[in-house]
């Protein structure tokens, strides 16, 4: 298990009458490994909503899918010692209503993705959207994830969709210096 000590912190301040979520980004990421299950993830804290008592975290994960490896990212909500996994952008847009917050959360997810790929260096990775993608706005974050895969030395293939859920396959083609 590895953890990186936080050094840089940023916060977006919002007026209390418009938003309750407070974004607090740190670069303290937690690397979670389960060798028995071949599941690996990198976790970050996103912030909290003092009104509801909810805390939010982001995760990028690699998990087995048959003989392949699947990548996914998600937001985790924790209230009163209970955690809930949010994989749908339709759910998270209700929580992160401020556009600056959504950009900040996406930036964290992209950083976690880069950390995860640099850490595990999987040879091939499949991924698909949790939601049916109906417009370019929904697709935008997945295009940015593809760019991170390319930055990390992967060739990314758009495999089309299954009933509206978009699918990609990434194959590692280069050593990163």
């Amino acid at each position, binding site marked *: 298990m590895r953890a990186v000590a936080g050094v840089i912190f940023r916060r977006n301040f919002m007026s209390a009458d418009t938003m309750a979520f407070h974004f607090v980004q740190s670069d303290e990421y937690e690397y979670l490994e389960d060798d028995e299950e071949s599941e690996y993830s990198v976790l970050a804290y996103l912030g909290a909503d003092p009104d509801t008592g909810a*805390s939010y975290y982001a995760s990028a994960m690699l998990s087995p899918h048959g003989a392949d490896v699947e990548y*996914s990212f998600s937001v*985790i909500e*924790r209230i009163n010692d209970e955690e809930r996994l949010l994989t749908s952008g339709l759910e998270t847009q209700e929580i992160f209503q401020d556009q600056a917050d959504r950009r900040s959360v996406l930036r964290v997810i992209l950083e976690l993705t880069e950390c995860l790929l640099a850490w595990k260096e999987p040879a091939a990775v499949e991924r698909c959207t*949790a939601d049916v993608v109906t417009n370019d706005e929904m697709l935008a974050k997945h295009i940015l994830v593809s760019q991170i895969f390319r930055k990390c030395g992967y060739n990314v293939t758009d495999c089309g969709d299954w009933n509206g859920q978009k699918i990609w396959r990434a194959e590692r083609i280069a050593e990163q210096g």
Partner: protein
Amino acid sequence: MTAEQKKQLASKVAERRAASFAKMKKNEAFRSFVRRHEGQTEPPRKLARA
């Protein structure tokens, strides 16, 4: 990727992620991390130099 492979990947995505999350929640490092940060709305203050 064949249509069958795409179906295998996409059709059970919610169940797979829920199963992975259930395992993650049992990880002591996860539990420690979420408790450590819970409720923070301010960046931690840096220690002043002596």
